[in-house]
C-alpha cells in the first residue's frame, strides 16, 4: 500500500509540475524531453553556483588543516537548502492536503498515508542535497584527496542528512499551522511569518561573501566554535578524517530525531488532519452592497484570490520585495553605490542602463500571471459561464500584475534617476524599458499558463510553486533580460550611448509586448475557452 501511495504522490509531483494532469491528450515525447532539459538546466545552474562557492573554500581550508570544517560547512549548507526548500511544501503536503480525508476514508492505515507523504518529501530533500553536495565534493577533489572511508562517510551522510532536515521542516511546518490555524487573518499572518523567514534566509545569503572571507581568514576560531556543536563536528570529522565513530554518532542523531518525529506525527496525524479548527464565526449584518463595473469586479476577484493565498503572494510577488528593497537601499546607500559603480566604470547613462537591465531581471521574478489560470482550478466553470468576453477575464489577470508591479518598478526607476542623474535619453529608457518589460513578462506568464495549465491541483502550492508555467516564465523572462543586457555589457558598452541602447531595447520590448497582447487576444482566448 505504501508503495502504491508513494507512486501516486510522485506522479502527482510530476504531473503538477509538468501540467499533464489537465491535458486531455497523451503527453508527447517532446514534452518529456523539454521537461528533462529544464531539469538539467536548473540542476546545472544550482550546481555551478555551489561549485563556485565551495571552490573558493576548498584550497584554503585544506591548506589550513581544516578539512573537517569544509565538510561541516557543506553539511550545514545542504541542511539549510533542504530545510528552506521543503518547509512550505511539508506544510501543504502533510497538514493541508485536500485528499487527506479521501485517503482516510479508504482502508489505508494513516501510517501509510503519512509514510508516503514523508517518503516523497525525503526524496525531494535528497534532490536538493545532491544539488549542493555533488559540486562541493567535486570542488574538494580539485584541491585535495579524500580517503575511501571519507567517501563512504560522505555517501552515508548524503543519505541520512535529509532525515534531520525533514524532521526540522515538519516541526516548523506544524508550528506555523498551529499558530495560523485560529487567527482570523490567516493569510496575512502566514505571509508575514514567511516573509520574516525568507528575510532571514536572504540576509544570510547576502552576507555569504563576508562569511567566506571570515571563514578563510579565521577558520581556526570558527572551527573551535563549531566544534563545540558536536554533530556539526562529527559531520566534518567523519568525511575529512574517515572517522567512522563520528559517522555512527551523526547517523544515530539523524535517525533518532527523525524516528522521534515520526512517532509523534503518527500519534497525532489523524487528529491533525481531521480536526476542524473552526473559524471565529462572523455574524452577517445587512449593509449597503458596493456596486462595481464588470471590469472592477473581475480585477477585485484576482486581488481577492491573491490576498487569500500566502503561497501565491510569496512565490509570485517576492520580486516586488526585491525591487522596492533595492530602490530603498539605492537611496540610502547612494554615496557608496556611486563610488562602487564608478570603480567599475559605470556612471550616468551607463549606470542607468545597468540599473534598467537589472530591474528587468528582477521584474522577471514577479510571476502573478504565471499560475493565474491554474488557480481557477475546479471553479473555472464560473469564469466560463459569466456573461463576460474571455479576453476581459484574461485582461483582469494581466491588470492585477500591472497594478502591483508597475508602481514598484516606477519607484525603482525614479530612485535610479535621482541617484544616477542620467541624460534625457537614458532617463526615458530607465523609466520606459522596465515598464515595457513588466507588461511583456506579465503576458509571457499568462501565455505559459494557458499552454501549461494545471486545474486539478490538490493544494495551491502545486499551482503556484510547482507548475511548469511558473518555471518557464521565469526562465523566459530572465533569458530575455539577459539577451537585452549582455550585448551591451559585453560588446557595446564602450561603443554605444547607454541611453540610445535603452531606447532601442524599449522599442523591441514594446513590440514584443504588443505581439504577445495580440496572441492573447486570439489564441489565448481560444485556449482558455477550450480548458
Amino acid at each position, binding site marked *: 500500500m505504501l508503495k502504491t501511495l508513494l507512486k501516486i504522490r510522485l506522479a502527482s509531483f510530476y504531473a503538477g509540475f509538468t501540467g499533464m494532469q489537465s491535458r*486531455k491528450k497523451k503527453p508527447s515525447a517532446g514534452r518529456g524531453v523539454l521537461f528533462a532539459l529544464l531539469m538539467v538546466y536548473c540542476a546545472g545552474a544550482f550546481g555551478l553556483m555551489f561549485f563556485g562557492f565551495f571552490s573558493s573554500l576548498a584550497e584554503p581550508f585544506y591548506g589550513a588543516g581544516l578539512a573537517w570544517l569544509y565538510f561541516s560547512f557543506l553539511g550545514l549548507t545542504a541542511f539549510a537548502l533542504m530545510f528552506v526548500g521543503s518547509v512550505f511544501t511539508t506544510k501543504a503536503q502533510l497538514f493541508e492536503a485536500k485528499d487527506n480525508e479521501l485517503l482516510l476514508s479508504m482502508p489505508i492505515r494513516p501510517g501509510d498515508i503519512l509514510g508516503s507523504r514523508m517518503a516523497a518529501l525525503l526524496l525531494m530533500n535528497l534532490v536538493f542535497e545532491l544539488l549542493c553536495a555533488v559540486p562541493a565534493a567535486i570542488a574538494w577533489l580539485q584541491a585535495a584527496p579524500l580517503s575511501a572511508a571519507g567517501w563512504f562517510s560522505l555517501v552515508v551522510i548524503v543519505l541520512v542528512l535529509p532525515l534531520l532536515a525533514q524532521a526540522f521542516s515538519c516541526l516548523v511546518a506544524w508550528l506555523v499551522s498551529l499558530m495560523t490555524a485560529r487567527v482570523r487573518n490567516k493569510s496575512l499572518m502566514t505571509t508575514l511569518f514567511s516573509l520574516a523567514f525568507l528575510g532571514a534566509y536572504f540576509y544570510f545569503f547576502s552576507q555569504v561573501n563576508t562569511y567566506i572571507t571570515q571563514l578563510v581568514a579565521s577558520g581556526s576560531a570558527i572551527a573551535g566554535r563549531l566544534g563545540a556543536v558536536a554533530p556539526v563536528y562529527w559531520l566534518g570529522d567523519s568525511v575529512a578524517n574517515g572517522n567512522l565513530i563520528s559517522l555512527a554518532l551523526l547517523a544515530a542523531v539523524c535517525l533518532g530525531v527523525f524516528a522521534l518525529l515520526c512517532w509523534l506525527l503518527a500519534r497525532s496525524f489523524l487528529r491533525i488532519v481531521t480536526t476542524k479548527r473552526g*473559524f471565529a*464565526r*462572523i*455574524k*452577517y*449584518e*445587512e449593509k*449597503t*452592497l*458596493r*456596486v*462595481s*463595473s*464588470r471590469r*472592477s*469586479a*473581475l480585477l*477585485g*476577484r484576482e486581488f*481577492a*484570490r491573491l*490576498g*487569500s*493565498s500566502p503561497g501565491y503572494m510569496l512565490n509570485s510577488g517576492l520580486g516586488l520585495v526585491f525591487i522596492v528593497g533595492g530602490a530603498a537601499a539605492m537611496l540610502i546607500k547612494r554615496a557608496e553605490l556611486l563610488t562602487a559603480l564608478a570603480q567599475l566604470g559605470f556612471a550616468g547613462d551607463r549606470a542607468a542602463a545597468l540599473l534598467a537591465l537589472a530591474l528587468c531581471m528582477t521584474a522577471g521574478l514577479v510571476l502573478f500571471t504565471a499560475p493565474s489560470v491554474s488557480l481557477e*482550478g*475546479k*471553479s473555472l*466553470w*464560473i469564469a*466560463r*459561464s*459569466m*456573461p*463576460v*468576453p474571455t479576453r476581459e477575464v484574461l485582461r483582469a489577470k494581466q491588470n492585477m500584475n500591472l497594478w502591483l508591479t508597475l508602481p514598484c518598478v516606477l519607484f525603482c526607476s525614479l530612485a535610479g534617476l535621482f541617484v544616477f542623474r542620467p541624460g534625457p535619453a537614458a532617463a526615458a529608457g530607465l523609466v520606459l524599458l522596465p515598464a515595457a518589460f513588466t507588461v511583456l513578462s506579465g503576458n509571457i506568464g499568462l501565455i505559459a499558463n494557458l499552454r501549461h495549465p494545471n486545474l486539478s491541483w490538490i493544494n495551491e502550492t502545486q499551482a503556484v510553486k510547482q507548475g511548469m508555467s511558473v518555471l518557464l516564465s521565469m526562465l523566459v523572462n530572465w533569458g530575455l533580460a539577459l539577451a537585452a543586457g549582455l550585448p551591451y555589457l559585453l560588446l557595446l558598452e564602450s561603443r554605444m550611448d547607454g541611453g540610445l541602447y535603452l531606447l532601442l531595447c524599449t522599442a523591441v520590448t514594446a513590440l514584443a509586448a504588443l505581439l504577445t497582447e495580440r496572441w492573447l487576444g486570439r489564441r489565448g482566448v481560444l485556449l482558455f*475557452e*477550450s480548458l
Partner: protein
Amino acid sequence: MLRIEHLTKTYGEKKAVDDLSLHILPGEIYGFIGHNGAGKTTTIKACCGILNFDAGEIYVDGLSVREKPVECKSRLAYIPDNPDLYEFLSGIKYLNFIADVFGVTQADREARIKKYADTFDLTGDLAQPISSYSHGMKQKLAVISALLHEPKLIIMDEPFVGLDPTAAYQLKSIMREHCQRGGAIFFSTHVLEVAEKLCDKVAIIKNGRLITSGTMEEVRGDQSLEDVFLELEGEAHA
C-alpha cells in the same frame, strides 16, 4: 427559450452527444434523464457556452450560443453538479461579485439576496468564508447566485444533490414560480420521482443519443417514469 439542433460533441473517438435536438419553450420545466456518462453534462455545458461543440447549433432566446455567447450567458443561469465556488470569498462577497458581473442594480441585488438567502436559511452565514460551508450550503449559494439576475432560462445539473428536504422543497417552488413568470428550466436529474412530479416535459438520453422526449404524459403513458426509463434502457441494451 432553448433550442438545441443536431448537437454533436466528440471527445477523441467517443461521441459524447450525437445529433441531439430538443426544444424548451417559455414556461416549461424540462427534465433531462440518462445513465451516468450518457451525455447530460456535456449537453448542459454546451448550452451554457462553457463547452465548445463540434456540430449543430444551440439557441438561447433566439440567439446562437456559438455566435453570441456573452448575450446568451446574460440571459441564462447555470448551476453545476458540483458547486465549486470561490472559497477565498465570503458568501456575500461571492453574491455581490456575481451581481456585478451580471450588472444587477444595487437595489435589486440587495432585495434578491435578502429574499433568497432568507428562503434558503443562509442569511446568517453570508459573512462566513465559503471554504467553511458544507456541500449543501455551497449548493444553496450557487442557487441564490443563479437567481440574482432573474435569468430567463435556468440550466441545472443535478440541482437537488446535497440539498436538505426543506431547501429541495423551496427550490422546487422557486422553479415553478420562475416558469409561471414565463421563464424556462432545463435540468438533469437521476431522481425520477422528482422529475415525474416537477417536469412538464422530459427527454431521455442514452449514449449521447435521444431515445425519447415529449410531455410527461406522452413519455410515461400509464406507467411510472422509472418503468419507462428502465424499459428504454433495456431496449437500448438489447
